[in-house]
Structures are given as C-alpha cells and as structure tokens.
C-alpha cells in the first residue's frame, strides 16, 4: 500500500511538519492505532468464548503475552526490518533499531498494533493444546522474522511487491494471510484436540466453546475497532482523503453485515437453525474480505465481496475440517487465510477508485471495469509469496519445536485443562 510508505517519508521530511494538517493527520492515526490495539480485547474475548472453560485462562494469558512480547520485539527489531529507513533494499528494511533516530511515533503505534493483531490471530488456531512458552517463542518469530518481511514487501515503498503495484489497503495479505497460514501450519503440526474426531469413525465432533456471550462481545468489539483498522490506513484525513476514509467505513459495514447474513442463511438452510457461532465468524470473514479493497471499491461491490467472503468461509471451514482434518478451534484459518486471499484477489475485480493518498496515481481499474488482468497477476504473486514465506518459516519453527517435544502439552494436561495444570486453577469460580 503506497499510503504507508509515502507517509513516513513525506510527513517527517516535508516542511509542513508543524501545520494543522500534520496535527490532524497524526491525531487520526493515533486514534486509529488506539482502536486497532483495542482489537486485542476483541480477539481476547472472542477466543476466550470459543474455547472450553477449562482452557480460558491460558487463552487470555496467551493474548496478553502476544500483545506484550510483540510490543517489545517489534520495538527492538521488527519495525526496523519492516520500515527501517537506513539503507533499505527491496527485500528487507534496515536501521532505526530500538526506535533510534526515529520520530514518527504515531506511525510506529499503528504498525505495532497491526503486527500484534497478526500474532493474535495466528495463535488462536493453536488454542487449547499448545505449550505456553511456545506461544512466547512463536510471537518472537512472528514479529521478528515472518511478519516484518511481508510488511516490507507490500507496504514499504522500497518493497519489491510494492514496486510491482500490489494493492493491499489495510492488510489482507500482510496481516490476514500471514496470520492465517502461520496459524494453519501450527494447528496442522499440533494435530487435533483430543475428542475432536471420533476415534473409530473419524467423524468430527463439536467441542463447543464455553460462552457465546463473550464470543459475541468480542465480535462486536472487533467490529468497532475494525473502523480504526481500515479507515486508519488512510493515515490522515487531509488532502482529499476524507471521502475515501468515509467510504471505507461504509464499505466495511456493508461487507461485514453481508458476511454475517450469508453465513446465517447458509446455516439455516443446511442445518435448520440459525447458527450464531458460525454467524459471528461469518461477520468477521466479511470484514476480512474487504480489508485489501475497502478504499478502492463502491459500496455495492462491498455487498458482493461480503457475500462471497461468507460463502468462502463456510466452505473452507467445512473442507479444512473434513478433508484436511485441521482442528482450528476458532476457525481462524478459514476466516483469515481464505478471507485474506479473497480480499486480495477481489481488488483485481472491483477496484475503481484511485489511490487514496495520491489521487493522481490512477489505479488500473478492476476487471469488471475493463482494467485487464494484469493487476490480478500481481495480486496472485503477492498472495502466493506471502503464503510461501510465512508457511515455510512457521513450518520450520513448529517442526523444530515438535522435534524437541516442546510443542504440545501432554495428554493428562490437555484432558484436565491447561488452567488446572499450568495456571493454578480454573478461570471461573461460582461458589
């Protein structure tokens, strides 16, 4: 996304450092970063609601660790590799370690919040059976090795995918594909939770989470913070970015709502009742589906994107479970990996509005607007490369952990619940 890179150089170098425009744009970014951070609360509640009561504490702790460790490691190294401005090349950034000689703090804030989101999403897929120190190590690997490179390729103005003209407004590839694929690798190597598949028939068995109320609270918080997450990527409101930012808000609402309704409708048809849990996932899948494209499309396109996003979610969730036997307690692979892919691809079809920050640079119109398929190839290259990079590195990491027996908790612990064995008792005490 061109917005990020130009902003970091432009706003700190230009003479308008102390103009009202600069104040406003920075405050917009800070507010948005704050909202993106609040997604940690959203994902925390969502994931806590989706696991069983005996593992609640461990999932909450995991989210806390993600946020904290990610902040430290992103501050030390991650941001430099992604957006460091001393001697960057097209593959990786360099310089400004420990935020030395770096003053664009607001930009760091929102990038940190994005990076933390990517980690939290990924670890959701491994809930209820991963050892806790593995979470810590994975957070380090994710924020130092995996995420910054993809962010650099796509969002930094030196990145090679950026040079190719990839369009990813708020992180369909950078955040959701990376998070989805790393989570999937981890979840696959961990194997399913005990009891998830019937031992004889091999049929999947539902292991429902302990609280739908928490789950929906989490989803609503996510919906709220999604406005900061997407509209904040405009990195400001001045210089005719008002209209794009407003349109982003409208588009996000529409695609999320459509995703929810689609999945509820499919559930009603297939299972005979409205499935709230799936519906909530559909809502998030709808939101994810428009992350790459939200600044570039018309509101009506958001409806189509949300609709397809909901369908993609439903069927990928089903296929992952029944064909791949992937046990993803919070469905984050189906939502974020497949939703992220669809979001990246859909830009090539529906894009019609120009760049947000530089309206002069005309974006090639989407296929439906007669823009040809060149953009589609670029998007596909970006998608495949992000998947390969993140999948390969996380695969190696989890494989190594598995080799040393540090990956999965033992059977007794898993049956008793992580909380009782590792965290000094249950999360709930009602008497």
């Amino acid at each position: 996304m061109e917005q990020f890179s130009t902003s970091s150089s432009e706003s700190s170098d230009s003479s308008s450092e102390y103009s009202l425009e600069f104040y406003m744009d920075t405050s917009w970014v800070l507010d948005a970063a704050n909202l993106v951070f609040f997604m940690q609360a959203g994902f925390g509640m969502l994931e806590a609601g989706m696991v069983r009561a005996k593992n609640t504490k461990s999932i909450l702790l995991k989210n806390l660790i993600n946020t904290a460790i990610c902040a430290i490691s992103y501050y030390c190294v991650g941001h430099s590799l992604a957006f460091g401005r001393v001697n960057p090349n097209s593959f990786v950034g360099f310089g400004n370690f420990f935020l030395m000689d770096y003053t664009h703090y607001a930009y760091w804030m929102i990038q940190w919040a994005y990076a933390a989101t990517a980690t939290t999403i990924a670890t959701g897929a491994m809930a209820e059976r991963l050892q806790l120190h593995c979470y810590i190590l994975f957070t380090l690997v994710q924020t130092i090795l995996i995420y910054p490179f993809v962010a650099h390729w796509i969002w930094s103005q030196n990145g090679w995918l950026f040079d190719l003209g990839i369009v990813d407004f708020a992180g369909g590839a950078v955040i959701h594909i990376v998070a989805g694929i790393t989570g999937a690798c981890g979840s696959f190597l961990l194997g399913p939770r005990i009891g998830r598949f019937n031992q004889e028939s091999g049929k999947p068995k539902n292991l429902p989470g302990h609280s739908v109320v928490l789950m929906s609270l989490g989803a609503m918080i996510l919906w709220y913070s999604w406005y900061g997450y997407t509209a904040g990527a405009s990195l400001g409101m001045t210089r005719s970015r008002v209209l794009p930012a407003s349109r982003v808000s409208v588009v996000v609402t529409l695609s999320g709502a459509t995703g929810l309704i689609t999945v509820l409708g499919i559930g009603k048809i297939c299972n005979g009742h409205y499935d709230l849990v799936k519906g909530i996932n559909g809502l998030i899948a709808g939101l994810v589906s428009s992350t790459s494209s939200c600044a570039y499309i018309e509101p009506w396109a958001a409806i189509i994107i949300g609709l397809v996003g909901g369908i993609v979610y439903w069927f990928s969730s089903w296929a992952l479970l029944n064909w791949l036997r992937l046990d993803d307690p919070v469905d984050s692979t189906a939502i974020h990996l497949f939703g992220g892919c669809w979001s990246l691809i859909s830009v090539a079809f529906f894009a019609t509005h120009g760049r947000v920050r530089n309206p002069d640079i005309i974006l090639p119109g989407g296929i439906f607007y007669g823009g040809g398929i060149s953009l589609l190839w670029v998007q596909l290259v970006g998608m495949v490369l992000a998947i390969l990079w993140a999948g390969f590195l996380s695969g190696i990491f989890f494989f190594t952990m598995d080799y040393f027996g540090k990956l999965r908790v033992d059977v007794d612990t898993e049956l008793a619940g992580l909380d009782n064995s590792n965290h000094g008792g249950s999360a709930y005490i009602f008497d």
Partner: protein
Amino acid sequence: MEYLELNGTKEGLSAAVDDMWVLNATYLVFYMQAGFCMLEAGVVRAKNAKSIIMKSIIDTAIGSLLFWALGFGLAFGNADKASNPVIGTSHFFLINYENLSFFAFQWAFCATSITIVSGSLAERVHVTSCLVYTVVMSAFIYPLSAHWVWSYNGWLRLIGVNGIIDFSGSIVVHIVGGCIGLVGTYLVGPRIGRFDSESGKPKPLPGHSITIYTLGAFIIWYGFYGFNTGSTLGISGSGITIASRSAVTMTIIACASCATTLLAIKIKSGKYDVVKSVNSLLGGLVSSAAVCSLIDPWAAFIIGCVTSFVYLGGSHLLIKLRIDDPLDSSAIHLGCGIWGALSVGLFSTQDNLSLVLKRPTEVYGLFFGGGFEQLGVQLLGIIIVMAWCLFCASVLFIILKKFHMLRIEPTKELMGIDIDSAGGPAYQWDN
C-alpha cells in the same frame, strides 16, 4: 442534527476536520450495538442468551443493509432541494451521494433505534419475526420519522418559529424504538411466569448476569458521547462549543438520574438496586439526547433528577398494566425520551438555541420566558411521531400474530429459545 449545515458546502481543512469528527462519532455509535447486545444478554435468563444476541446482531446487519438501500433515501433523499416534506425520494443505494460520513452517522442511529425494540420482545419471540420488524423499521417507519423531524424540509421542521427540535434523537431514535417495542411487548403478552396466574402479582425473572448487564450499560454510555456530540456534524464554527456543552450536560443528566434513583430506592426499600440504577442512567442518557446542547449545567441537574422519577413511574406503570418488558425498554426509551423532548420546550436558553439554530430566535424555553410555543411544538411532534409508530407497529405485529409468527410455543419458551432454534445453549461449563 441538520440544524447545523451539512458539510457538503464547506471546503478544505475545516471540512476534513468536521468529517473526521463525524466519523469518530459514528464509530462510537456503532459500538453502542455492542453495549445493547451485552445489556440485553445480561438481563435475560441464561437459556435465552444466545437468541437475544442473535436478534441483536441480525438487527444490526439487516437493518444496516436496508437503511443503505432504501431507508436513507426516504429519510434524507432531498436531491434538488425539491423533495416533499413527508418523504424523501432520492439517493437510494447511495446513488449520486457523496457525503458519506453523514450517511454513516445516520446509519448508526437507525441501527440504534431498531436494537431498542429487541429488548422489549426478549425471551418469547421467534427470531424470524425479528427479521420482519427489522426490515419494516429500517426501510419504512424509522426513515419517515427521521425525515419529518430531521430533514431540513421535513414538515415538523416547518411548524412554528423554530420547528421541532430534537438535537440528537430523543424523538427520532428513542421514542420510535421505545414505542414500537411497547406495542410489540403488549401484543406478545407477558413471559410465562412473569405474573402469577392466579393472583396476577408480578414475579421477578432476574437476568443471568448483572456483570454483563453493567458492562453493556457502560459501553452504551461511552457510545453516547459519540451519539450526542457527533450530532453537531462538525467542530468548526461553533461546533466544538456545542459539542463540549453537550458532553458535560449529558454526563450531568445521566449521573443525576442514576444518583436520584439509587437514593430514592435506598430510602424506600432499604436496599441498593443495581438494575434500576443502571436503567436510570440509561434513561438519563436518553433524555439528554434531545436537549443536551441547549441547556446550562444546572438545568441538566434538574432534568436528570426528574428523569429518574419518569423512569421509575414508567416502570411502575408497566407492571400496573401487566405489560412485561424484560429490559424496561419502553420506560427508558419512550418515557425518558418524551421527557427529554419536552424539556427542550422548558429549559432551553435563548443563547444556546440561537447558537444551535445558527440564527437569533425569540422562541425558547418556557422557564426562561421564551413562551409556550416551543413546548407546544415539541408536544405536537411527540404525539405525531408516537401516533405514527403506534399505528405502523400495531398493523405489523397484528399481522405477525395472525400468521403465528410472533410468539414461540409455551413448551419451547419454558425450555429456552436457544436449545430450540439457536442450536444449543449459550454457556457450556463442563467438558
């Protein structure tokens, strides 16, 4: 609301600042959905928690889509400034509409109004009927009320010197929502066990989690800051002065109302009542919506104290009339909404009113010597809007009842809606 000019005509930085303000407020108002969802979930019994959340989420999703498609055009579709005073006629599907931040803000208001209704109908209504009234409300009932009261050529705006004044929706949002909810809950009848079948005495059916309930109330309070201060539609000119005043008076009204109820109940029954105090807090927020920008802080204190008794009286009256409103939604939103709208005619000062209307006016609050006219106009407006809602809602719910789509069967009600139509309970404490 539209008393302040729309920002379509403004240019440059101040337009950007104004839109940024409106967008931030919009996000907050959307976040109120999370608050209502938690509020309603906490106050129903555990066996119905999932279905009420489902309704709450469906409201938002379907309502948003319909308001985008039809509602907004009927409410604010004033292309060429030539639409008639009863109904708007253009900009359906946002065609040819550029002021997207204004649209998004109105959108969030509509979603709020709809979600009020589901509280009144909790624990005994088909999910499908919720779909139906959401469609009718967002596409028809709400937009017309909004057009009459808020659109600059709405016919209630043309009455008298100032026209009707409803700064941020005591009438349009809360009276409409509360009124439809009241009709619905009256026609559905009380929950099984709410009134003793022999003596007719009310029996409390306490909700399953006060914690979740309070969380919801706090989120609503937070969102209300966007609701009330965003209605300035900007901060340039006198916008920020009005917004600061609104934030302060609204807080005073809510706190005074809450404190009064707290002490009144303590004095009467010797106990502190959390639920009633929280409801009063919400009632205070509701009555502040119409009047917050027009009064001085001390008047806010008085309005708040009165609000408390309006709510308590309304709640008492509902029980007298054997109407079972699980959330006291009609007492809160209809009762306090009426009081808030009336207090405009009583307490608004000449200075503040002139500032909001952007022209000097000689007609203002009765208590400040502004005469009876404004009070009369407010009263008329309230009656008209209530009559409209009562009529539409009666027709709607009677039809639904005729086709047995309104109330679920007694056995299912006793069992809980979740198990029947939402695929299992909301909580799973074991396994």
